[in-house]
């Protein structure tokens, strides 16, 4: 059994209200959610239900209004912005729907970015990035710019970037929705194969029912709440 202490992510009563132009949007209305270490959890639900908001809180790039969010036992509320930024650098990997690679950098350099942020010397960082390139099956494309790569290849570079520094939590927002079905499957298989590991949790937000089968658990969200958690992977 997993205990509270060993939980990768533990949310209790997390709320978030956006105020823009006088209108308030209750994006999270008290979320309770646990993510176990070494599991792949998918977060699904209708558009606007708060999925992105929730993983932003979990990843430490957005402050919740109320409730507690603990990631590997650390409470973001007790950390300064600077500490949080540094913590993210070490412990969190990101995969975005729009890839968000730096267009001026080669694939290898893009993968090396988290290492460079952590202060690793450039040469060493590029060496390690090359090893990761092999892992995401792009060994020969290290010198290509993102614009020279297909969408699927770019997302594989992004996965490499999320992995390279060995973070304990990887968050992915719609990692396959910019890709066609086949490519999406390849990418999710790659994620499952390379990113899941002991003491590393993966939270993937997705709309794409065709990849549900890769999840260990699926958390369904609606209107700012977790409505159901399915432990059994759905048939594809």
């Amino acid at each position, binding site marked *: 059994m997993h205990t509270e202490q060993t939980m990768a992510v533990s949310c209790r009563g997390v709320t978030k209200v956006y105020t823009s132009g006088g209108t308030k949007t209750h994006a999270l209305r008290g979320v309770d959610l646990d993510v176990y270490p070494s599991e792949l959890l998918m977060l699904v639900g209708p558009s606007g239900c708060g999925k*992105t908001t929730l*993983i*932003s809180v979990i*990843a430490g*790039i*957005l402050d919740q209004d109320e409730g507690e969010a603990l990631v590997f036992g650390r409470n973001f509320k007790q950390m300064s912005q*600077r500490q949080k*930024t*540094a*913590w*993210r*650098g*070490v412990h*969190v990997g*990101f995969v*975005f*729907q*729009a890839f*968000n690679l*730096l*267009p*001026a*950098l080669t694939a290898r*350099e893009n993968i090396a*970015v*988290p290492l*460079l*942020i*952590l202060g690793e010397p*450039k040469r060493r960082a590029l060496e390690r990035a090359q090893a990761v390139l092999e892992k995401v099956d792009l060994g020969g494309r290290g010198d290509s710019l993102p614009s020279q790569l297909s969408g699927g290849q770019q997302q594989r570079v992004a996965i490499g*970037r999320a992995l390279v520094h060995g973070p304990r939590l990887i968050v992915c*927002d719609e990692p396959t929705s910019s890709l066609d079905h086949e490519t999406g499957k390849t990418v999710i298989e790659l994620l499952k194969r390379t990113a899941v590991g002991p003491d590393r949790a993966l939270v993937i937000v997705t709309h794409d029912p065709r990849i549900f089968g890769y999840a260990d658990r699926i958390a369904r969200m609606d209107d700012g709440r977790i409505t159901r958690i399915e432990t059994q992977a759905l048939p594809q």
Partner: protein
Amino acid sequence: MNFIALKMLMGDRAKYIGIIIGLTFASLLITQQASVFVGLMTRTFGAISDLGQAEIWVMDPKVQFVDDVKPMKDTKLLNVRGIEGVQWAVPIFKGLLKARLENGNFQTCIVFGLDDATLMGGPPTMVEGRLEDLRRAEAVIVDVNGARGKLARPPTEPGGERRPLEIGDTLELNDHRAVVVGLCNVSRTFQSQPTIYTTYSRATQFAPRERRLLSFILVKAKPGEDPEQVRERIQKETGLLALTSAEFKWTTVKYFMKYTGIPINFGIAVLLGFLVGTAIAGQTFYNFTLDNIKQFGALKAMGASNMTLLRMILLQALTAGGIGYGLGVGLASLFGRAVRGSELAFRMMPQILLISAGAVLFICMLSALFSIRKVMKLEPAIVFKS
């Protein structure tokens, strides 16, 4: 992270070139216009520079600048010579006289009359002949530009070339015969007339009969004497105005600055360069940051601190600034090289390079500041917004 910053900067070709052009333009315009300005201002005191041996210039208290001659009584020279701490004091005549050319035309010339005994205050360099030749009867020395230009003799055959004035040629100054015994270089001044050197006594013969002819007294302080104290003593004891040559240069420059539109015109050009440079470079740089805001957001999400991002933006701004400044100053000095020896005044002083470096730095910092503010306030959560 430095190479990431630089690759980001240069990755966006169009913006990168825009930023560089803006900064190049600003530093070119500032450097070039300021150099022309300083060149012009240097010309205003060309006559003072040429009379380099003098430490102190003594003149009528009403004199406002070097071309503003207010003659004094000859006896003043003896007064000044009697003052303690003066090693030597020589008279100098400076006036405008009409020279009659061979074709019957008249040309106004600046005539310097030098102390007969010492010939102190002569031209800075001789091109032909010797200064001592001025001691010969009716002797004058003419500046090369004048000899080749305004004082050149008419062609011997119709349609031929005008012949430059040469040693041995004669001209008439106020109906007095003068023989050219040498050619010299002089600093270019605001006056476009030819310059002629002769002795003081001969100059006073050439000049129309006036009671006072002593234009300036040039003084050298005794070794070990502080020229500043000698200057004060002269002023106190004679009631004349005494200035060190540096002070006299400044007085002259200030006169031109105050009573001509020159500084304002150049000031406007320099300011315009600065403003246009700021507008183009600043705008483009800020736009560049905005275009890359998502990239900065991603870096922030991935753990790049505000300090790191600030350093990246500064590096980008300073790199663009350095390149723009180098190009601008390079183009300005090419311009200076191209106009060397021409009528155009151009003097690129180290101070100007510092000033335009400062201006470019300021533009970069200002552009960077807005970008930095934007990136500091950036919420990393934007990375998940599509």
